[in-house]
Each structure stands twice: as structure tokens, then as C-alpha cells.
């Protein structure tokens, strides 16, 4: 197979784009897809201070790397979950990356906050993964606001977005559909949130990480009970295989056709946590409740 741009031997075939690329042309393609997402959704500019939520996994390190390569002003934020045999390894990878790229890294340790995940797990009967996600989002937002960042960037890729959309549509979760977007604007107490990898697939992200030699965490969190959307991702891949381009069409079609209608009926959360100011439906937000405030 030959590269469609330069006719060299291809290393990557992308049926959804009707293309095959050599290494250099793939990297050019990938950066372009990210730039297209950043620009078309007006995510940020070179003047903005960007905070990248980094877990040490392939997606978040890819995002940080590509933003730095594209010349954006991007710092990293790592939330140490206090999970033995996992969090330290992840932190090590993120720290090494930051050092190599000479980038600024902020670390929040949930032990210092009094809510390491193993303790939270003991206190709750709910699945700890969803609470863990809530806690991480809480600190991404708080640290971002406190340190004067303009925008928070997360490493969600097209497959993450499409499988979430698919699941939300299958179950008609209207309240989640309203919030599903590559850009969530800032509002009082909430930092603007963006997903610059929303046009690239899991496969394309993996290829990028491989070509760039990124050293990421490749072990599963011991608390994760098999990623929630893995089943949907598998089904969607089957559809994508027989009908290339379906994933991006489904996602872009949602943003273009359904999202504007949904936004009209959106109800904003008006309440703020009386302890920390975070938007919440009750008087005290769930993180402050975990910390013992009532």
C-alpha cells in the first residue's frame, strides 16, 4: 500500500478517510485533524492558557504532546488517586513526560485532600469509577480556575464520544445528550472545557503515540470493572468496518442536527455549593460531602 500524499510505503490505512499514509504524512494528517477541531469549535488560541488533564494514559499524553508540538501554551494537571500499584506508576510517566518536554505539571494528591480513592471506595456503595470521575473533574475545574487557566482540555477521542453518544441515544438520556459536546463554554464556577481529539479515533491516537514513542500507562486501574463503553465500541467498530466513516458521520451529524435543538431546552444548574462554589443541584456538592461537610 502506498501513501496517498507522497507515494512512499504506507504504514497506516484509514478507510474512513479513504487514505493510506506513511509516517510523516500520517503525523501531518493527525495534527491537522486536531487543528481542525480546535479551530472549527473555537476551542482556544495561542494566547490562551490551557490546562491539560493528564492521567498518564495514551490519550491524555497524546493530547499534551500534540498541543505542545503545535505551539500551544499547555500545562498538565495530574490527580494522584492514591491507588496502590497504579497511581505512582502513572505519576512517574507523567512526570517524565513533563520533564522531557520541559512543560509545567501540577499534581493534586487526593491523600492530601483527605479523599484518596481507596477510602472513598470504603465509604460508598456506588461504583467507585463514577465517583472517581466526578472527583477528578472537580479538581480539574477548581485548579484550573484557581491558577488562572482559560480552558481545560481532556483527551477524549472520537471513539469515546461516539460510544457515549450511542449509549445516550439508545437509552435516551436527554440530560447527558444536552451536555455532550467538544466544547462546554465557561459559566460561573465552571471552567471552559474542550476535547481537541474529538475528530481522531482510538486507532489514530494509538498510531500517533506509537510513532512519537510516547511512554504511557498500559495497565488497567485495579478498580475498573471493564470500561463501560467497551461493548458499544466493539459494536460500533463492526459497523465502521462494513461502512467506513459511519462513526464520524454519526457524531458530526449529532452536533449539526440534534444538538442545536437540544440546547434550546437546556436547563442550567443555578445552585452553587455553599462550601466551595462548585455548581450542584443540592446545597453541598458531592466532593465536599465526601470530605464530611453537610
Amino acid at each position: 500500500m502506498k501513501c496517498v500524499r507522497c507515494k512512499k510505503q504506507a504504514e497506516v490505512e484509514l478507510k474512513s478517510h479513504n487514505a493510506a499514509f506513511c509516517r510523516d504524512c500520517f503525523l501531518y494528517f493527525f495534527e491537522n485533524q486536531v487543528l481542525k477541531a480546535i479551530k472549527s469549535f473555537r476551542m482556544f488560541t495561542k494566547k490562551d492558557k490551557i490546562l491539560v488533564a493528564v492521567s498518564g494514559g495514551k490519550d491524555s499524553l497524546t493530547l499534551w504532546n500534540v498541543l505542545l508540538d503545535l505551539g500551544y501554551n499547555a500545562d498538565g494537571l495530574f490527580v494522584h488517586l492514591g491507588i496502590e500499584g497504579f497511581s505512582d506508576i502513572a505519576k512517574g510517566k507523567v512526570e517524565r513526560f513533563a520533564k522531557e518536554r520541559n512543560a509545567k505539571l501540577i499534581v493534586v494528591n487526593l491523600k492530601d485532600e483527605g479523599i484518596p480513592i481507596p477510602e472513598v471506595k470504603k465509604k460508598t456503595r456506588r461504583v467507585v469509577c463514577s465517583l472517581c470521575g466526578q472527583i477528578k473533574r472537580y479538581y480539574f475545574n477548581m485548579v484550573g480556575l484557581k491558577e488562572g487557566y482559560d480552558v481545560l482540555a481532556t483527551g477524549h477521542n472520537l471513539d469515546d464520544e461516539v460510544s457515549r453518544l450511542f449509549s445516550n441515544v439508545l437509552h435516551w438520556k436527554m440530560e447527558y445528550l444536552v451536555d455532550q459536546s467538544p466544547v462546554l463554554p465557561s459559566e460561573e464556577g465552571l471552567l471552559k472545557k474542550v476535547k481537541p481529539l474529538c475528530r481522531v479515533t482510538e486507532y489514530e491516537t494509538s498510531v500517533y503515540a506509537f510513532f512519537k514513542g510516547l511512554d504511557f500507562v498500559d495497565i488497567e486501574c485495579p478498580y475498573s470493572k471493564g470500561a463501560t463503553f467497551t461493548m458499544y465500541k466493539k459494536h460500533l467498530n463492526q459497523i465502521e468496518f462494513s461502512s467506513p466513516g459511519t462513526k464520524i458521520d454519526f457524531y458530526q451529524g449529532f452536533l449539526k442536527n440534534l444538538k442545536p435543538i437540544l440546547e434550546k431546552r437546556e436547563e442550567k444548574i443555578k445552585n452553587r455549593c455553599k462550601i466551595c462554589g462548585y455548581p450542584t443541584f443540592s446545597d453541598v456538592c458531592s466532593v465536599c460531602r465526601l470530605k464530611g461537610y453537610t
Partner: protein
Amino acid sequence: MTVDKREIYSFDTPISVGKILKRLNFLPFEVLVIKGNRLLTRDVVLRDNEEIEIKTVYSKG
């Protein structure tokens, strides 16, 4: 903690990468097919005792 499990398979050569993926029940965009520091596309034909590594792309974080 789950560590990546590795499995080793052998096939009669010559055989294309695409055929191997089909036999192992992988879609082409679910895995990286690695030889040395290069990725191989589906049409590449393996001969003699060539070895490749196949890695799934799903995030584990």
C-alpha cells in the same frame, strides 16, 4: 492489577497481515501490527520466519 497477557501464534507463510487479523478475529483498526519500529498495513505479506507483534488499541486507564 491486570498485566497484559501475551500469546504467541504461528501461521504458515506466505500470509498477509490482513489474513492473520481475520483469523485472530481482529478488525484492522483495533490493533497495531508492529514489525521492528514500523507499522504494517493489511496488504503486507509475511514470508519465511518473519515475526510481528499485534497490540490492541483500547485505552485501559
